[in-house]
């Protein structure tokens, strides 16, 4: 079984966001970058499929040289081969997906795994875009994954429940938290990942379909009201919610 997994590199969840000098993207100064948390579920799923069915695993990322760190994290967890489509320009999800699709067409994997969303732009687009570009079925926000012969079954999260979705190989899956418990790389894996080669490629597509005009920070909230420090504050709180905030 051939398994591909796509990973992105994103600012750590504790990042304090500042707008950069271009007014359109964040100021990278002092930001720590990590592999997109949802992509760890995708990498783990890829490794489990390989352990069960045999075969080969490959990780693909599109972006700056620093995305190699995300590829190395995937290596440290056990992925065998890595490809970076190297580009310093800001690509939107469409452009990223086109580049991934061009690489993945060649790889011809049975299963392509993604995270359900990148926690930088929170787009939730790339997995389904790539699937459509390759003419493949896709299942997004998967919390379970079962492959039986040529049939794939996943549960995916929807509002107030889950859908049981069935499809066939080859397939694209986007991973939601809960799909598995990503393994911690061991020291040997981390050391081996450091020196392992990463294939670099040029982007095949750079034309964005969306354009960011400006980035801003949300308006700071005016300081709230402490209504009280014991049970006697309860009627006052309810009154404020009804009469001042008018939300009840």
């Amino acid at each position, binding site marked *: 079984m051939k398994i591909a997994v796509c990973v992105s590199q994103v600012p750590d*969840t*504790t990042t304090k*966001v500042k707008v950069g000098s271009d007014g359109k993207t964040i100021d990278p100064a002092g930001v720590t970058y990590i592999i997109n*948390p949802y992509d760890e579920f995708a990498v783990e799923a890829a490794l489990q499929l390989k352990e069960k069915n045999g075969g080969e695993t490959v990780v693909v990322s599109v972006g700056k040289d620093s995305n190699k760190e995300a590829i190395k994290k995937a290596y440290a967890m056990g992925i065998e081969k890595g490809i970076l489509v190297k580009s310093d320009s800001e690509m*939107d999800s*469409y452009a990223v*997906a086109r580049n991934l699709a061009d690489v993945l067409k060649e790889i011809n994997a049975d299963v392509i795994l993604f995270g359900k969303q990148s*926690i*930088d*732009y*929170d787009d*939730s*687009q*790339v*997995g*389904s*875009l790539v*699937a*459509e570009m390759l003419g493949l*079925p*896709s*299942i*997004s*926000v998967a919390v379970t994954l079962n492959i039986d012969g040529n049939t794939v*079954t996943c549960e995916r999260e*929807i*509002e*107030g*429940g*889950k*859908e*049981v*979705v*069935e*499809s*066939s190989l080859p397939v694209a899956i986007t991973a939601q*938290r809960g799909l598995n418990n990503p393994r911690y790389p061991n020291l040997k894996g981390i050391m081996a990942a450091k020196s392992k080669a990463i294939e670099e490629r040029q982007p095949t597509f750079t034309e964005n*379909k*969306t*354009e960011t*005009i400006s*980035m*801003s*920070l*949300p308006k700071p909230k005016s300081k*709230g009201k*402490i*209504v*009280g*420090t014991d*049970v006697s*504050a*309860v*009627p006052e*709180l*309810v009154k404020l*919610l009804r009469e001042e*905030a008018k*939300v*009840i």
Partner: protein
Amino acid sequence: MSKILAFVESRDNRIKNSGFETASTAVKLAAELGLEAEAILIGNAVANTAAELGAYGIKKVLIAEDPKLEKYSTTAYSKILAEAAKASGADIIILSATAMGKDLSPRVSAKLEAGLVADCTEIKTEGGNIIATRPVYAGKALIDVKVTSPVKIFSLRPNVFKPVAVDGVSAEIEQHNPGITDSDLNVKVKDVIVSDEKLDVTEANVVVSGGRGLKGPENFYLVEDLAKVLGGAAGASRAIVDAGWRPHSDQVGQTGKTVSPSLYIAVGISGAIQHLAGMSSSKCIVAINKDKDAPIFQIADYGIVADALEIMPALTEEFKKVLSN
């Protein structure tokens, strides 16, 4: 001529709230741009709900019906939506960023080579252009975006765009032949598992969430009771999801769900940056926490600094009293 097409989601042949939001937003944008707005309903017997869209100013509803479309299929629905847009000459498509909308919109985007702005919280027009605002970095920043491709797709964050009723228009119905084959149903929903009929945090108008300050899972009923009285949903911080008190589907935050209810009540939640990421766009935030320096108070509109275990029963009783008057 160019047109706006709203994808209207239904469940069990009833239009979802998010469907009225897309229809109404399409009507508003069409009025500003001097275009026409149409809606499309896809499913099994959905035609009888079409009339409801007239109340929001939709003049024409495309109906794509087939028993095979009873349950959602990403491949079939995306094909129908893309082809309906082409056939009707729509070059602006509005969806909702629901589980279905998020799954469907990128596939339509790829089919129509159209730029997609996902999860918008505001849409305005400027000199004939559409400018969409969307949160990024889990709401720590906002970007204004425009689409540069000829066909443009926007998905709306649920619960943010309030549907506006207009004076009675009756919606004309037009059948759109779905023309799907078995190969279009390559991805099929076999079954839907409803979690005990419970309201999802992303769909609720009031969310009451509990955190580690509740001390133990045996006290979580305090949160559920209040949520019930307010007709809302119960949410959770990651700390108590990781501790196994609550399922992950209830987690609010950066790696959980993003909610924007009218009222969010955080009970015994410290307000870590990853939690705030999922709820800071709520209209009114109430915090109950015994630590006056807890970060949650920095974004709360109202707070009580006290033991949640004492406050909650009284708060639930008070709401019961007030709401029954």
